[in-house]
């Protein structure tokens, strides 16, 4: 059940480049979050500006601790990663749909950049059998944007791509996907919208079930304001309520990419 509560900043760690790890405590309500679910975060210090809470995927949980992997892209994220230990943050969560429970058979996980966050929780929550069946394709612009590679590699098979070839294979995640789709039971993906659209198309062509985790600007995060609508094949979808995780086929990709 969604709860609204205030948590405390335990640490903010700079990971690399524009990526930070925000750890909150007093987050019992998020302990059983499912991979793909997210939380709306709003530091109390924001007062009149920024106004809105910001959505972030639940990346890791441990007791009443929750970690978020945050990429700074604007004033909200900039301010969030400058929070001091002990600051209070209003949290709404866990919100939204989760990736489907793994069916039997090989799973391909495709993460682009900070889209790693919900995929990371999937790996955490999976059992050994599921992990043995899973391959993560993890793409970034450059080697410096890759995080937690060692940890990830110990748990699932990992294929890394970078756009500049500074680590792993040079190219895009989609270049590595096709060869893995054969016999694959499920594709789960999170990353830039354009990337996910491509992933969805490849999975569709291979007739492999595919779930994507969409993004949209949000105000309420709980299906109230109708602000986070994205075009779906059967009418608008609310990313915070119908998503963020959606069967790829439900999304009207042409409209989304306009």
């Amino acid at each position, binding site marked *: 059940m969604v709860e609204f509560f205030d948590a405390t900043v335990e640490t903010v760690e700079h990971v690399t480049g524009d990526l930070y790890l925000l750890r909150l405590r007093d987050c019992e309500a998020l302990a059983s979050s499912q991979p793909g679910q997210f939380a709306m975060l709003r530091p109390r210090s924001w007062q009149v500006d920024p106004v809105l809470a910001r959505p972030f995927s639940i990346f890791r949980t441990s007791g009443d601790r929750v970690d978020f992997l945050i990429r700074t892209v604007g004033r909200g994220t900039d301010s969030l990663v400058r929070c001091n230990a002990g600051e209070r943050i209003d949290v709404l969560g866990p919100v939204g749909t989760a990736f489907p429970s793994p069916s039997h058979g090989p799973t391909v996980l495709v993460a682009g950049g900070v889209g790693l966050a919900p995929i990371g929780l999937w790996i955490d929550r999976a059992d050994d059998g599921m992990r043995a069946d899973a391959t993560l394709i993890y793409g970034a612009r450059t080697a410096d944007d890759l995080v937690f590679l060692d940890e990830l590699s110990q748990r699932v098979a990992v294929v890394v791509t970078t756009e500049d070839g500074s680590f792993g294979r040079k190219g895009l995640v989609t270049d590595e996907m096709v060869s893995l789709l054969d016999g694959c039971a499920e594709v789960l993906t999170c990353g830039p919208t354009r990337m996910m659209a491509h992933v969805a198309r490849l999975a569709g062509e291979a007739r492999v079930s595919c779930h994507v985790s969409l993004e949209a600007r949000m105000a309420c995060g*709980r299906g109230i304001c109708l*602000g986070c609508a994205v075009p779906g094949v059967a009418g608008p979808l609310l990313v915070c309520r119908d998503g963020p995780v959606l069967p790829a086929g439900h999304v009207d990709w042409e409209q989304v990419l306009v």
Partner: protein
Amino acid sequence: MEIRADSTVDMGVDLTGLALANPVMTASGTFGYGVESKDLVDLAELGAVVTKGLSPVPKEGNRAPRIWEAQAGVINSIGLENPGVDYFCEEYLPVLRSYDTRVVVNFFGQTEQDYVVCAATLDAADGVDALEMNLSCPNVQAGGLQFGQDPSMAGRLVAACRRATSKPLWAKLSLVGPVVEVARACVDAGADVLCLGNTIPAMAIDPRTRRPRLGALTGGLSGPAIHPVAVRAVFVVHRAELGVPLVGIGGIRTGLDAAEFLLAGASAVQVGTQTLVEPNACIRIRDELRAYCIEQKVTSVGQLRGACRLDGDA
């Protein structure tokens, strides 16, 4: 502000035939139809639930994106998406009725007829305590001019709805335009309560992509940025002495923000944007308002109405 438990303040307000337990309501469009929040918010603690706007038939919303954050404010272009007044009466109203809260139903249309249909339907519906007309809609039969920008058009519209309902009829006005003239026309036409007001037309453009931030190009500004504009609107309408209670809306975040509206002349308030980021905002604000009453040594929140000290007052 500390709240002393031993002090009692009468928080009730009377809005022409509708008594509220406290003056802090949700604002239309920022609390859905109330029922979505029943597990997060104690609905009985709200002055009233004000619903998302309804039209006679279901209405699609605007294209995405629909939300952009401005400076100390939010611009939205939801597009009044809603499942229609009949669906509301069948699906949501019975659930709402099971909670001990007042229900104010917001509605709108593109023609006078649309408004009248809604008003008649809601008049007949059990559990609707008051009807709030959103006048900030374009009149498709008058070249798209907003009903609420023209005093005579606003008056005619209110009069038509007045004939369709004997329940309390609230008119929700625009903060921009000839606000006193429109207010007077609405009261003359039979509005029981005036709500001030709606969002302010606004726009943002992404300089990098050169695209408007909203799919609908422009939207409505809400939040702290508009608070002083709304307080001024309540103040000037209060001074016009139209004889009906006023409801202040715009940028309320704290009990003191709400108090400014009451001092300017409002009897009650609605909280919109802050409710989006804090589901329980109304209840906290009510508590802060009560603490303010204690601090100001008033025993009834009604004593604050219009109690702004002007020149010469002691």
